[in-house]
């Protein structure tokens, strides 16, 4: 079919955006607290692996999710220990986590399952599968709205809906709770938090734990919702795209969601255009479309979004001045 199937593109936009939304929200929590988190990618990968392994062993996607979250939180705590407690360089710590994730998951996967770093394919009962909303199947053939309902609104797994709930929830936590107020403060001026008698260290640890939970959802989604098992390096740079979306959205929850949807859309569009003729040009190499999200990232970050002011204390370990 040569015509633009907007419904199917939108449906896959949603599917491709979910890991970005989880991951970018994870970055939102740590970076608003003043801890740069370049290791989002690695955390996704670790949790994808853990979720796949746990789901395979137990046959339960929920235990897979718990395992994914637990491992991701653990990695977050390591990042926190290096960069908060020991005041190490946050970028270096994050890069180390990414390398570790890429290597260790493949090695463990090979050692345990001998399938070239993959985990064994999961049965549908060990995965998060699509939820079909009431009347979705009946409405499938009833015009645009019906198709939109059936393919874009309905028909996704539970994590998808959790991701969209996580957006207003993050907003509410950041702007309407004591924890959120303090978290935003510690990313701007940790001195103000310290002199108010609040522990900067504990606050930043809690922010990284939040990020761990969200990254855990993201990795789990990749391994046992979108796919049926772990594949080496399956995060494929999504952690970095999420980081770009975070900057693009100027560290605010709702724009983060919109940015992730935009990147997801470009990705979906690239998939859709695979092997199709562009009117007047003919077949365009799919790599051109696949490069679009990255080109867009560069263009947007290079100035189209105005000044993206990061949290002022970001990247700087807190030391009481003498």
């Amino acid at each position, binding site marked *: 079919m040569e015509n633009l199937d907007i419904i199917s593109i939108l449906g896959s936009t949603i599917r491709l955006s979910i890991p970005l939304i989880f991951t970018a929200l994870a970055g939102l929590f740590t970076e608003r607290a003043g801890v740069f988190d370049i290791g989002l990618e690695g955390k996704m990968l670790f949790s994808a692996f853990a979720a796949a392994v746990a789901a395979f062993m137990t046959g339960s996607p929920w235990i897979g999710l718990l395992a994914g979250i637990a491992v991701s939180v653990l990695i977050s705590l390591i990042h926190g220990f290096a960069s908060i407690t020991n005041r190490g360089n946050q970028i270096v710590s994050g890069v180390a986590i990414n390398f570790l994730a890429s290597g260790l998951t493949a090695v463990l996967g090979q050692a345990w399952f001998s399938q070239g770093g993959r985990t064994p394919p999961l049965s549908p009962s060990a995965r998060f599968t699509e939820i079909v909303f009431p009347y979705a199947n009946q409405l499938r053939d009833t015009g645009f709205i019906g198709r939109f309902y059936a393919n874009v609104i309905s028909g996704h797994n539970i994590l998808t809906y959790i991701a969209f709930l996580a957006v207003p929830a993050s907003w509410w936590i950041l702007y*309407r709770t004591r924890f959120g107020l303090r978290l935003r403060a510690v990313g701007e001026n940790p001195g103000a938090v310290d002199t*108010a008698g609040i522990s900067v260290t504990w606050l930043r640890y809690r922010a990284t734990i939040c990020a761990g939970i969200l990254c855990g959802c993201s990795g789990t989604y990749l391994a046992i919702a979108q796919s049926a098992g772990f594949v080496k390096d399956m995060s494929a740079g999504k952690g970095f795209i999420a980081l770009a979306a975070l900057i693009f959205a100027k560290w605010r929850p709702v724009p983060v969601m919109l940015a992730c949807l935009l990147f997801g859309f470009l990705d979906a569009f690239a998939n859709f255009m695979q092997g199709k003729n562009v009117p007047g040009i003919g077949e365009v190499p799919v790599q051109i479309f696949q490069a679009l999200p990255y080109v867009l990232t560069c263009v947007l970050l290079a100035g189209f979004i105005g000044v993206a002011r990061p949290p002022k204390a970001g990247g700087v370990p807190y030391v009481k001045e003498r």
Partner: protein
Amino acid sequence: MSSSPTAAPAIELIGIDKKFGAVHANKNINLTVAKGSIHGIIGENGAGKSTLMSILYGFYQADGGSIRINGKDTVIHDSQAAISAGIGMVHQHFMLVENFSVLENVILGVERGALLGRGVSDARSALKRLEADYGLEVDPDAIIEELPVGLQQRVEILKALYRGAEILILDEPTGVLTPAEADHLFRILGVLRDQGKTIILITHKLREIMAITDTVSVMRRGEMVATRKTSETTVEELAELMVGRRVLLRVEKGPAAPSDVVLSVRNLTVKDSRGVTMVDNVSFDVRAGEVVGIAGVAGNGQSELLEAITGIRKPVSGEILMHGKPVTGFDAARLRALGIGHIPEDRHHMGLVLGFEENENSVLGYHRDDRYGKGPFLNLDACRDDAKAKIEKYDIRPPNCRLKTANFSGGNQQKIVVAREIERDPSLLVVGQPTRGVDIGAIEFIHRRLIAMRDAGKAVLLVSVELDEIRSLSDRILVMFAGHVVGEKTPDTGEQTLGLMMAGIAA
């Protein structure tokens, strides 16, 4: 003083001792502060004032000694404990979250519950009350970074009062304020005292101490050397106690002997990085053998003028001449080669690389000179010998040219910059805020060196926001307001006249 002799003192510090590694910051400090008084603590930079107050506020733990608040022994192991003991602190560098509203800053740490709703509305009515009681007006919904510095400081005071502070510590509160803002602050402090609050004012400005305090304690090198009733002491006595020797508060100098014009500025217009015109059609000359002072409230174009003259910022129009030859738009290196020395306004930002060793900063900017090396290579021995000679001549302490520059006190860092620029023997010395954050002893020294440059027949262009400094050093004073030179005066012009010109009211 409104304290009665029977009331327990608000604060008693007994034998407070604190070491940072080899540095003995506080040596067995005893201090008593009467309730309902304004108590000044004065001392040079690095005398240990801020450390002592940080201990009282729970920011650091003392190694020894005890603290009594209102006659009760109190252990202050963190800031939370200090706050619940009724102590509030206004830090030198404000502890405010700049992109938060006033209200959010006020409730940070005292939110009254996990959700913000109730805390915010409580704080809003509390701020109204504080405004009525103490005349502390500020819009609770304003964003901090959009407020002028004076109002930001008011938010810090409100923060402390909202937390129920009975004792208020202010660390160098006027360093960032205009004279008018400082006067306003002093009026507020007076009201707070009259309402029974106890105030500790840390400063190194003698005039403030005399103007507002009831009692003053002097610290020197980690020790509390004296406590006086303010009414029974003099500026001269306090200066001597601070420095440990007699200090000349006025610069001694003979009449100037101006000769040829060294620097000519003709119709110069300079814009800042936002594109706002900061210097507007300014013209003046500086002759050899004179000090020309530029007075003005910070932000009226002085910084941009200095940057244009020293080649850091390109002017939009107009001309700059050195010895009659046009040098407009030359970069800093070329101007330095032509004999312009520059002591920048902000030594941390432009004058020094704090992470470098002293000797590296001591040659920075002149490192291409033949005496410091050949071709691409530095002659480290030559650099270090040169640095040692400057350390000796300028009495830079500690006398160690391998020490990291960040580890020198403000006054000594400034001396490193002054030594570097003066020893290069420029024909024009451009000086910005030469004694900002510098202690009295070093101020005296730097002032003497600047006058010595003048007497050696050099041209000196001085920019300072300290009117005293301008008046005591300059032979001619230009006043800048809103990018214009609004007038030229002689140094014996009264402070009031200059103040009105600086405010743009009189010409």
